[in-house]
């Protein structure tokens, strides 16, 4: 049986250098498919969908709200051809009721141990409209290595440089941050994978550079330290979200190959300044993630925050505007206050203002958002700053003999497309 698994395209953030990373959700889901299912994977961000290619059943995996409308359109094309379509993934859970209108079936929750039922029902022509496993999460121990073999590796390559592989060591999040839907999606219980399972999966990844996509590694000191301690011999280099602010943890993280972390910068306090410095003291780079448009931010606060970012020596910064994603507290608050004026999910890309900010107009917030990008990168472009970070990792790899030169065969390609070079002869 051929199961065509599709990852819909979306419009990338304006102003941000576009790098297309291999997706994580589809490869994790593919690992839970019954053995008789052949997967044909298409990531529409790097290749076109051939709607007329043979397949028996279509799965649409969606991570972002900005993918849902495209996902629905893809489903319509296949259903017109008489092929059944099932949806899954994070944004299927966030937009389940609407997605149902475009689907033969939707799957809610985590797929491990649940796919046999779905495919048996499909074969028996008795597919259920909803497979609801939101409240029936699999034991974390059964989460095995993802099926990265379904990816077309050469499409996630920029001029010979392979993009990082995505990987997860835990699920769930005990924090329940204001703009975040993770608590709804993965539960508020932190579920770390057993270290031996994590190592088993890491062994399967040829790529030396990873992005550990866990919501926050800083949820269990003991597990986090154990993880890093065990990763040291692997000599991987990796990006992650926040690491615990503890000298012992940071030291182990650095030894385990921490390349740079995403760190939320929400105010101009000494705490933030010192936090960034501590990462740097251990040789770990920092990409600040800065959310603009919170109710407590005035125009002056935002300008002060941008000045502050330039002072604290961040390696990179990513700006987003507050976006009230469904099933978050911010969504609840704005819904009650009748402040959401745009429910076109294509605009829920975190660079479009879809709500009435408390202290300025939506237009002014968007201007400040553009100003933030421009000011932060005024002296050194994003590409230049990224190149500096890239150089750091290459030097570290050279020191520990893990450096792999770029693939010269792909030197004239970027994410599957030919690069046109302007040569002066």
């Amino acid at each position, binding site marked *: 049986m051929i199961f065509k698994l599709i990852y819909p395209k979306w419009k990338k953030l304006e102003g941000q250098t576009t790098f297309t990373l291999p997706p994580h959700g589809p490869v994790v889901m593919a690992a839970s498919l019954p053995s008789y299912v052949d997967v044909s994977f298409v990531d529409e961000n790097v290749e076109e969908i051939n709607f007329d290619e043979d397949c028996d059943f279509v799965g649409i995996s969606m991570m972002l709200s900005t993918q849902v409308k495209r996902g629905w359109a893809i489903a319509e094309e296949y259903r017109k051809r008489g092929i059944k379509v099932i949806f899954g993934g994070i944004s299927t859970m966030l937009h*389940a009721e609407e997605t149902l209108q475009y689907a033969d079936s939707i799957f*809610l929750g985590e797929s491990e141990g649940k796919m046999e039922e779905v495919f048996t029902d499909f074969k028996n022509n008795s597919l259920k409209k909803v497979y*609801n496993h*939101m*409240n029936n999460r699999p034991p974390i121990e059964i989460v095995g290595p993802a099926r990265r073999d379904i990816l077309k590796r050469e499409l996630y390559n920029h001029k010979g440089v392979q993009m990082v592989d995505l990987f997860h060591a835990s699920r769930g999040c*005990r924090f*329940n941050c*204001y703009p975040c839907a993770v608590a*709804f999606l993965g*539960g*508020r*219980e932190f579920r770390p994978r057993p270290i031996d399972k994590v190592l088993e999966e890491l062994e399967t990844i040829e790529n030396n550079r990873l992005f550990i996509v866990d919501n926050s590694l800083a949820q269990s000191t003991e597990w986090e330290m154990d993880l890093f301690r065990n990763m040291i011999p692997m000599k991987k280099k990796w990006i992650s979200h926040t690491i615990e602010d503890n000298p012992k943890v940071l030291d182990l993280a650095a030894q385990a190959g921490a390349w740079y972390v995403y760190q939320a910068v929400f105010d101009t306090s000494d705490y933030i300044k010192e936090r960034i410095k501590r990462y740097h003291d251990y040789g770990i780079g920092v990409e600040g993630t800065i959310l603009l448009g*919170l*109710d*407590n931010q005035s125009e002056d606060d935002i300008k002060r925050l941008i000045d502050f970012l330039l002072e604290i020596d961040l390696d990179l910064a990513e700006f987003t505007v507050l976006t009230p994603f469904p*099933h978050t*507290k*911010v969504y*609840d*608050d704005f*819904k*009650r*206050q*009748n402040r959401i004026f745009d429910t076109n999910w294509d605009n829920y890309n975190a660079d479009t203002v879809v709500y009435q900010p408390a202290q300025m107009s939506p237009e002014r917030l968007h201007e400040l958002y553009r100003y933030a990008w421009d000011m932060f990168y005024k002296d050194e472009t994003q590409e230049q700053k990224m190149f500096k970070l890239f150089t750091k990792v290459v030097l570290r790899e050279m020191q520990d003999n893990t450096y792999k030169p770029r693939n010269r065969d792909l030197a004239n390609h970027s994410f599957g497309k030919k690069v046109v070079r302007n040569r002066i002869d």
Partner: protein
Amino acid sequence: MKIQKKDVDIIFDFKGLWDMPSKCGLKIYHKKDKTVVIVTELYKENSGTSITDVTVSLAKQICEKYAIEPEKLIYIERNPETNSKLSFYSEKNYQVSFDIEDGNISNPSYIEVSADDLKELLD
């Protein structure tokens, strides 16, 4: 003789979105010609759906369980004070109005109410 219903002050277990087991604080005050229901968000203590994500369903579940006539319902959603540094987690109360037809609750709309307004509702 009409028996006065007892007031309620409990942690209420309810079915959240997609039947997710969920919890909220629940206070019910039976007044002469109205029943004031205050549902409180529990944040970390609630592993399920927020009270606002399922406003209508939660109000129905409470009315059914405690035999409250929707026409007499005064429904308050409360975000409790969490002593957080973030202002979004300070106490807020919203009175929720519903369309009620043949005892059926739908179409919630929210108005923030001050502590004084709330006190007045409870008097």
